[in-house]
């Protein structure tokens, strides 16, 4: 059974410009959730019906002992600015966990995780789970500028190596994160790639994966209405005869080769 739960906000802090980290008390969601899945959050309150649609947010962290769900989001419009204003003790109506998350292959010993901007959100819990399994995790984070490199300390905790790239060189290397990925792939024999970030970045990661003959999973975002596979509003074009797949239930995690990157 899927469920709609009322979750209490435990904390909500701005961790970077316009970027918030929120923790919710949601044990029933946390116990079922996998890295890469999302929750669908109602942002209108009380009898208000505006904004009308829920907002899908990636699951950032899962604390099974405390039943604590972490979210990391950037304020991009009306819905996320309402979420940014939420305070400890407020309540949110959420549905989840939803969607198909990341799946680490049984035989993977070494993985690379690539995040761009706010796209790091679904990757921390993946790094956490991989590390717990004894898998070597090489994390690469990119952003426009140093202040937008999100949660590097958390990623460092769950990574064997952490490399940072910024467009302006203010922190880490002045390069694209995909450039440092090429370097990593030459040095290390990784078994799998996992990525989330801007489409242009994902497209390059998928291409690098193909040329290196590596399996690659990417997490995509789309505007959603239902979030559960009923409305067919959040589709993306695939490589399969121009067919569409739903970001909400076929994804949000897709194999890199499934996606039609030229659309």
């Amino acid at each position: 059974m899927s469920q709609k739960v009322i979750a209490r906000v435990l904390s909500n802090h701005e961790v970077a410009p316009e970027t918030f980290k929120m923790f919710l008390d949601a044990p029933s969601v946390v116990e079922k959730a996998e890295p890469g899945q999302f929750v669908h959050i109602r942002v209108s309150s009380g009898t208000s019906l505006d904004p009308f649609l829920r907002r899908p947010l990636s699951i950032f962290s899962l604390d099974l002992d405390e039943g604590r769900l972490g979210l990391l989001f950037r304020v991009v419009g009306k819905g996320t600015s309402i979420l940014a204003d939420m305070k400890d003790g407020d309540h949110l109506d959420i549905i989840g966990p939803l969607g198909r998350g990341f799946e680490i292959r049984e035989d993977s010993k070494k993985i690379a995780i690539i995040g761009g901007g706010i796209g790091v959100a679904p990757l921390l819990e993946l790094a956490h789970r991989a590390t717990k399994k004894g898998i070597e995790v090489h994390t690469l984070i990119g952003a426009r500028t140093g202040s937008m490199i999100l949660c590097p300390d958390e990623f460092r905790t769950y990574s064997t190596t952490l490399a940072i790239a910024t467009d302006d060189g203010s922190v880490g290397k002045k390069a694209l994160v995909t450039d440092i990925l090429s370097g990593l792939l030459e040095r290390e024999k990784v078994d799998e790639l996992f990525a989330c970030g801007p489409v242009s970045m994902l497209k390059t990661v998928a291409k690098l994966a193909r040329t290196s003959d590596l399996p690659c999973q990417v997490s995509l975002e789309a505007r959603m209405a239902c979030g559960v596979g009923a409305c067919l509003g959040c589709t993306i074009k695939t490589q399969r005869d121009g067919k569409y797949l739903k970001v909400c239930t076929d994804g949000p995690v897709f194999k890199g080769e499934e996606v039609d990157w030229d659309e």
Partner: protein
Amino acid sequence: MSKDVMMELDIAGIEIKNPVMVASGTFGFGKEYGRFYDISRLGAIMVKGLTLKPRLGNPPPRLIETPAGLLNSIGLENPGIQGFLTSELPYLREFALPVIVNIAGDTVNDYAKMADILDEVKGIAGIEVNISCPNVKAGGMAFGAVPELAYDVVNGVRKATGLPLIVKLSPNVTDIKEIALKVQDAGADAISLINTPLGMTINVEEQRPALGNVFGGLSGPAIRPIAVRMVWEVVGVVKLPVIGMGGIVTPHDALEFIMAGATAIAVGAGNFLNPMAPLEIIDGIREYMEKENISDINELIGIARR
């Protein structure tokens, strides 16, 4: 304890346990929301619109939020009628739930063929003839906007099947009463309305239309007053029962439609905001009837007209 209230109804020969249905295109083929609750509690399900052959649908982006609603241009993505019968209907047959199959065609013949196929199938309570989809080039809304074409489609379907026929009307017309009367003449058993009014938004940052298909259908609370008005108008001229829909999210919204004369209602985009909305509406109508000492739902239908 208040007395029991009667919510059972017969609409177009379909027996429903309460007047709350779920609208085509917002509820898939039931499975998605079947994970939230027992869907046999619903009055009926109107499944995603089907065409004779599978359709891929329109290019993304397919939806955009608007004030108190959303615009969509899904474009009737569906597995085709055979795909539905093979892969989706078996799931629905497990429930004591009337299944109303929404069909859309490019030609009168398409509609008739689909009705003919469905006529033979067990586990189908009725057909909803969609002459109002705003998102496909051929057929769809074109049939619903011209009284004679609407007549031809319904007449063609009527000849092909003995199943109860509900015809879903488009609000994108000058006079909805005229279309309603035509489909009544052609042999419809009920009318459902409204499908989505056509709308558009511009993505100002990118200086181009926000939807991949340029135009889309508007749904959600934003359209509710238009829908209530059209239900009121149509109920005033036809003898057929009317299923009202358009922006219903709460019991209060549903009561508006019933009081305007709708025999039943359907929850559409409201499912997206609140997956539990249909059940809350069933309970809310019951509570209202208890509070107002109304024992039979039939007493409520059209009460605002008297």
